[in-house]
């Protein structure tokens, strides 16, 4: 069974975010790009499922929409343990474009399920997974915390408001996953790093599609007024109730 993992790349989480061109563009000159952390967890779990002989998963492919600059990120995914990488050659302008590109490539692909990290750490849309499922007309299972198998049928566990549910889907599904799907991202080993270059990384052309929304400007978040240091628990309770009026 093949598992497809959709990945995006974001500025390293410790990077300072700056903008240029009158605050209309992200200043990417000093940014170090990394795999979006939720996607990295998705890939980690997919690779673990493949390495676990007790599951029917035997192949993991990663797919990314992006320009040539994201190839090192894909090769890191291959080093972590994906078997194949595909890059759809365009820098997308919004989540709809990303999802449409992915859907065009994934339509009809033989696979058990498709995994998407809940959101990306750049535009925080949490949109691509759901859009992709709709475009493919697949079921989407969100807040997935684990995958078990009943024979060759995947059973997805999802977190719901008052507990956990296990669900089964007739046909392929898009899983939207968050922390908990894997505990920590897998660190690639030397063998993985060495073989990453010999694994296939296909580049395919993008299709024409217009974005639905436009990012016109960026501003810095408002700065905080500064901390008020308190000396006793009594002062804290009083401040929260009388001053902030929150309790």
């Amino acid at each position, binding site marked *: 069974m093949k598992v497809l993992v959709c990945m995006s790349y974001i500025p390293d*989480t410790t990077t300072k*975010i700056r*903008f240029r061109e009158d605050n209309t563009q992200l200043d990417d000159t000093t940014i170090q790009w990394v795999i979006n952390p939720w996607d990295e*967890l998705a890939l980690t779990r997919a690779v673990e499922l493949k390495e676990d002989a007790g599951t029917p998963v035997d192949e993991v492919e990663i797919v990314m929409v992006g320009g040539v600059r994201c190839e090192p990120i894909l090769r890191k995914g291959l080093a972590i343990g994906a078997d194949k990488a595909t890059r759809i050659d365009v820098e997308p302008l919004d989540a709809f474009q990303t999802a449409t590109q992915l859907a065009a490539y994934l339509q009809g692909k033989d696979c058990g399920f498709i995994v998407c990290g809940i*959101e990306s*750490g*750049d*535009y*925080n*849309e*949490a*949109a*691509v*997974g*759901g*859009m992709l*499922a*709709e475009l493919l007309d697949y*079921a*989407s299972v*969100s*807040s997935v*915390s684990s995958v078990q198998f009943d024979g060759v049928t995947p*059973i997805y566990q999802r977190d*719901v*408001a*008052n*507990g*956990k*549910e296990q*669900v*089964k*889907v007739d046909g392929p*599904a898009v899983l939207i996953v*968050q*922390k*908990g799907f894997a*505990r920590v991202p897998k660190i690639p080993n030397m063998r993985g790093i060495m073989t990453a270059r010999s694994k296939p990384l296909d580049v395919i052309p993008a299709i024409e599609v217009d974005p*639905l*929304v*436009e*990012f*016109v400007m*960026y*501003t*810095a*978040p408002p700065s*905080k*007024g500064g*901390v008020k*240091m*308190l000396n006793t628990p*009594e002062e*804290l*309770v009083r401040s*929260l*109730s009388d001053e*902030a009026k*929150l*309790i």
Partner: protein
Amino acid sequence: MSILVYIRNVGGQLKKQSLELTAYAKAMADTLNLEVTGLVIGTIADDELKKLGNYGMSRLLKADDEKYNQRVNRVYTRIVEQAVNEVDAKYILFPDNAQGKAIAPRLSVRLKAGFIPQVLDLPSSYEPFTVKKRAFTGKAIATVTAHTERVILTPMLNSFGLRENARDLEIQSFEPHIEEPNSRLELVGKQLSEEGLQLADADIVVSGGRGMRSSENFALLEELAATLGAATACSRPVADDGWRPADEHVGQTGKIIAPNIYFAIGISGAIQHVAGVSGAKCIVGINSDPEAPIFEVADYGMVGDAFQIIPELNALFKKHIHENK
């Protein structure tokens, strides 16, 4: 034309979030001279739903056939789509939580409607539709426009607040036409969790870091949370070490929350952690290290031993809540 608000049905109960979302919709509606319409799916009593009228909703569609009690994203999307057509909704609002995230993007594709999540404020313009949203996990704010005929928004919890605006609410039964069976997704098991309050819904969050020193010591935070009706959370190292469940991890790579009060106890306040709570109205930092970076972002800070402070705080809050009942 109208504004449609998706009302989350949590086992027959409304969440405060839905009231806030209604108030947000009402503020838009007043500017545009439109009506606020709601949609709720699954079994829920009218008495509970009437609360929505207090915040400005005038009409509510109720798709309460029992077969819809089980959420299937694909089916729910189609129900909302039909409601959009029924009331000719130009703007569709979802809560910014797991359910909103599961359905709104699907609806966006079906309606070819611009989708803007994590909205921080009321729209600054309607021609073209322009609104501010959170970006780069709180490190920036993006101004986004949508030129599509319809627009879908998920305003962030607590970004707007509750504003009462009483209306007579007309509740109507709504029968969507869902051709296909519900069964593409089959429920094979369910476990109810003991702790009722979800992190994303909580007004108050009590969160602990490595400074709590062991998993056992989180009992102190659980007691404080119980007093305050708060949810518990933790920093990444705590979740990674298995002291707390992974779904309590708040931060850049965990949950992103925006409660009214966030207690950061024994949390140093690394940039990756703060990114998860930058939307909180009020951050309270309690740390033994006066130089901890949490005090750079906190509204209130206390330096000291959490093991001493927390029980005292707990007793004081108990007393305060009792006196103000």
